[in-house]
């Protein structure tokens, strides 16, 4: 993470509405980012000819070429991390956005601090894992299935089990490291980042919530076991498969 000191992170901000774009750009600059503004998809493409930003913030609804189309171009051709700005907050928009490769999305009106937290989180993931071709592959364990794009957890009978985003990230942390002991600090580090209130949430609390949803008997957990001396382990194997490949 030395790059943050050496050169500011460059962000391309694309929104047709100057009333939002300009103050947001100012805010991000105050937060230490270098921001290039574009009022349309066409303008954004021109900008991209001369420079390569580290991350793009795209408004979905724009006149002319819309954000989703530009997003596809950016993630496929430029392999650029993208965060979508959406006015609707509809599940459909989120799923479409994430399916065409956006890394995250925020719903207008968003909290600027939350946006910054997400920018950092997306950049951290981009640095750590690089482009992850397996990103949208389904997790499978003990008959359960987790779709990381739709954040959809289904039990062995195919019933959807609704989980919160904190539980989702915790579960993904476990599924990415099956049969490895994860101490609380490590889990906290992997789970935090998107919602501010999670920083001071005890990991134990989240684990017990998750257990209530996926364990047959929450008092005698079989899948997520407690390790003496502080930590948890996912005591099962995990398979990953591309959506639509299995079934």
């Amino acid at each position, binding site marked *: 993470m030395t790059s943050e000191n050496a050169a500011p992170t460059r962000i391309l901000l694309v929104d047709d509405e100057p009333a*939002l774009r300009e*103050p*947001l750009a100012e*805010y991000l600059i105050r937060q230490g980012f270098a921001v290039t503004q574009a009022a349309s998809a066409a303008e954004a493409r021109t900008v991209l000819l001369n420079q390569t930003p580290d991350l793009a913030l795209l408004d979905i609804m724009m006149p002319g070429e819309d954000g989703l189309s530009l997003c596809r171009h950016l993630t496929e051709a430029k392999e650029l991390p993208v965060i979508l700005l959406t*006015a609707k907050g509809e599940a459909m928009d989120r799923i479409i956005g994430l399916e065409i490769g956006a890394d995250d999305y925020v719903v207008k009106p968003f909290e600027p601090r939350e946006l910054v937290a997400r920018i950092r989180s997306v950049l951290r993931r981009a640095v750590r894992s690089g482009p992850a071709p397996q990103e949208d592959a389904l997790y499978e364990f003990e008959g359960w299935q987790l779709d990381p794009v739709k954040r959809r957890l289904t039990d062995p009978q195919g*019933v959807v089990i609704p989980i*919160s985003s904190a539980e989702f990230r915790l579960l993904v942390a476990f599924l990415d490291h099956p049969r490895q002991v994860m101490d609380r600090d490590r889990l906290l580090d992997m789970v935090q980042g998107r919602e501010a209130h*999670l920083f001071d949430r005890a990991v134990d609390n989240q684990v017990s*919530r998750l257990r209530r*949803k996926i364990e047959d008997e929450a008092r005698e957990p079989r899948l997520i076991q407690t390790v003496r001396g502080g930590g948890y382990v996912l005591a099962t194997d995990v398979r990953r498969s591309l959506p639509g490949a299995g079934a």
Partner: protein
Amino acid sequence: MRLRFFPRSLLGQMLLAVAAALLVAQAFSAALLYRASEQRRQIGVANGLAFQLVSEPRFDYREAGPNLPPPSHTPSPTPPAEGRKPPIPVPPEAREEQERPRRWQRLRVEHTLISPLRPGETRDTNRENLLREILAGQGIEPAELVVTNRAVSDDPYVKQRLRDTEKWRGRPDWVDRGLIVAGLLRKGEKEWTVARVPHPAPEPGAVGGIIAQTMIIYVMLVGGLALLLRRITRPLAALTRRMEQFARTRETDGQLEPAGPEDTRRLIEAHNEMEGRIAALLDEKDVMLGAIGHDLKTPLAALRVRIESVEDPVERDRMARTIEDITRTLDDILSLARVGRPSDRPENTDLAALTASVVEEFEDMGEDVAFGEGARLPALIRATWLRRALRNLVANALRYGGGKARVSLRREGDMAVLRVDDDGPGIPDHELGAMLEPFRRGEASRSRETGGAGLGLTLARAIAEQHGGSLRIANRHHADGTVAGLTAEIRVSIG
């Protein structure tokens, strides 16, 4: 009370009405026909009797004496036997000639000195009157006239005659029907003339004819009517199906071609036109709502960014909360407008986990919400929507219900019941119904401070109905009648 076989369709009711009317009309004409034929028969009988009584020769042509009654084997108490003379010999061929009228005559006409009405027999006054009229028409004024009905077995005269003839003629068919016996005493005479006629046989064709006629009319009329009505009801049924489909999908594809009679055609045309207008209005509404959502949320987002530069953190937080309130109201309005046409498909989802995740959101915000975790309860629902409905109820309970909420989930038959209880002051009973209307808030919370536009319950109800269920809100009472709190229940259908 509902008749089980009463037809519900236009076709069935119409046919039933026509069939019933036809049945009544046919019954009337059958009754009239029967009466006419009955009258004809009675007149026939009376005429027969009158003919016998009147045309009866005053003398037996075999008897010599002018004023003597004809010979008779009647066992009447005073048989006029003393006046008898030896029969005049006749040649065999003439004898044969005479035998027949004599037998005919003797079977029917009898002369007695006493009234043929025997003790215990009743007079048939109807026939007497009829007969008297006919006789009057012939210029005969009877001194006395009796008519009575009698079984053959009770009539020794006929029995005697039958015994004589039965041997070679066989038993006549009228024996079982009984006799009508008429006695006439003319003025200035001492002897009764007694005529007998068997009861007339019923006319067999009368009732059968009317039934056959009714049947034919039924087939022609009801069948023809059924064909005609089907021409009306088939397009109507198609139109009904089309309307149901339109109500479900709100798509203008697959509109009906106008068919059937002119009236039905015009109905279908008018309906198609209306569908087009409704679809256009709905599209307009969606475009407008989308525009509102976009046009208002972007400046709100700008405002939200701008307030970050406000120095005073208290002031900044207040501004942020106001923006959140506006956003929530905007979301509720947009959701309410969209709830009728859900874009996401229902999924089999565990309601227990869904409820838990909503409760956990509130816990994470430091709210006091209790939920006794129960067994799995999978149901075919739209999770995003139902979560929102439940969230609204819990938020209401926390806001107006004293800061505490209890959530529970149970199953009742094929419905799942999500219940939210608070310990607040409740809502006055007369306001309960109005609480479900848009932009309504309880009396206690009219001030802007508590926030919310009052769409929460409206939206929750719309979502519950979208899930084939309902929303109920009611006050809970202590034993002494004071309000213990408010209960809100969402019922959703499982599966």
